[in-house]
């Protein structure tokens, strides 16, 4: 009979409408600015630089090796290497970035800088409300704005941060017979296998 197909479809619509009041599977949206769904731990958006201890300048892990600048597919990282050296977390004198800029408008959050970094110095952040009022200067994130503490890293990615700390502590123990206490606010992490990157 003509019209039965349409009536069947309307039954589906009615079931979905009523169901949206009772079943979470049928209504999965939230009222965004007021309600937020928790972000997945793997969620990534825009990189940041990690520093140990409390000093954003002295504790920066980055040694300005420029690998991320070279590997970045859209070429959004700009680094100038320092003239002098400062001691890193193992006490070894290292270069540091005099300038480290990332352009928000160019970065596509692909995570390749994190994968290629041999010093665990750059990690992915979870901020996504990155809109800015101005077009030019505000879009270029400088070293000061990019630097975030290891504590912050632990707060956004606890599992991964613990793995990274364990790896760094292991490397420090190999280099020195008496290792300094693990950098930052590293909680006691059981030895986990290195993350597959």
């Amino acid at each position, binding site marked *: 009979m003509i019209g039965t197909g349409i009536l069947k479809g309307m039954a589906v619509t009615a079931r979905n409408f009523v169901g949206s009041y009772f079943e979470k599977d049928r209504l999965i949206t939230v009222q965004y600015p007021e309600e937020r769904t928790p972000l997945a731990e793997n969620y990534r958006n825009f990189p940041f630089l990690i520093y140990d201890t409390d000093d954003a300048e002295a504790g920066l892990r980055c040694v300005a090796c420029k690998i991320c600048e070279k590997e970045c597919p859209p070429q959004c990282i700009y680094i100038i290497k320092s003239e002098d050296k400062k001691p890193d977390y193992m006490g070894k004198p290292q270069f540091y970035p005099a300038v480290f800029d990332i352009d928000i408008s160019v970065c596509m959050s692909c995570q*390749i800088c994190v994968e290629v970094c041999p010093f665990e110095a750059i990690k992915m952040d979870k901020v996504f409300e990155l809109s800015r009022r101005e077009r030019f200067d505000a879009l270029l994130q400088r070293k000061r704005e990019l630097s975030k503490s290891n504590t912050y890293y632990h707060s956004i990615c606890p599992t991964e941060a613990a793995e990274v700390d364990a790896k760094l502590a292991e490397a420090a123990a190999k280099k020195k017979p008496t290792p300094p206490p693990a950098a930052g606010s590293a909680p006691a992490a059981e030895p986990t296998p290195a993350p597959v990157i």
Partner: protein
Amino acid sequence: MSATIQTLEPAAEQPTRLPPQMTSRLDGELLEVSMGPQHPSTHGVFRMNVALEGEIVRKLKPVFGYLHRNHEKIGENTSYLGSMPYTDRLDYFCSMTNNWAYALSVEKLAGIEVPERAEYLRVILAELTRLQNHASLLGFLLSDMGAWGTPLMYAFREREKILDLFESLSGSRMMCDYMRFGGCRVDAGVDWMKLAKKIVDFFPRFLDEFENLIVENEILIARTQEVGKLSAELAINAGITGPMLRACGVNYDIRKVDGYGFYPRFKFRVPLGEHGDTYDRLMMRVLEMRESIGILKQAFEQIPAGPVMNPKVKIRAFRPPVGEAYGRIEGPKGELGFYLISDGGTNPYRYRVRPPSFINLTVLEDLCLGHTVADVMVILGSVDIVMGEVDR
């Protein structure tokens, strides 16, 4: 690239292209309409120069290139790894399958082995991609037909769940950048697998409802059956692939033909159409989703534990040997292939994409001739294009 109105000739000069039941109503005078590039149902910035006789399409010329962003040249100027995130942006609905096709061709080029668990993960992610691509395509198609909102929202609701899975695994909903040469970037945990199983188990309920909503709907049948018929001969000659080819009754599925990945280990059927019209193309997607669910269930049972990345592969300064390779997969839209020529350096010498949407779009004129303007939108929707892939 730019087609001007003047290039369209009146239909009187080509009487053989007119279907016999159509008579010339306006003494051969054609009205030329430029549909697009900003048209809500062109699925992106896509323009069609249409010559109309009354409401009937007599000529159609697709114009594209508005979204061209030099993908292939960028691929030749970045490292092999650096192209991976760019492949996400080709067909932004199916970044996982794009990643896989590119990884497959690089693996062929350099002869890289992939661990077993990674192969299974790839199959799982590709089939999840197929589910969400087909679901959203059906929603868009019905939206093109005038069923505003309802089917699209139902489809997007299911797609949302799959995108959340992608996000929790790879870090991003659409720009996954998940696969690497020789495996996958991160392993899927136990919780992820449980959640994925739950979503896949729930998916048939959505399909049942969606079929109830559309399959017998009289309006949908009137709009799609016998509209945009594609013959098997033309489909083969024009190089059409994917669900669009199978809707014409040609049994050609690269998952079966090439048996890439671990697809030979799975039992699944290839649904075939009979008439090659829009209705068949639409139903092809529904049936393929059912088969995908079967593959996913088998994969969840069979997936072994183990590493997901080949430890021998260097991510940085990756230099494959001199040679060339073409890796292709059955993407949700058709055959997606990457052709790479290596000169031994860190960048490919030549990087070429064989996009399914672009090649499937080439027969658009043949599908649309003799139909009304309103049908053009439906036919275009059933071709399943994404402009990111057409223009590259």
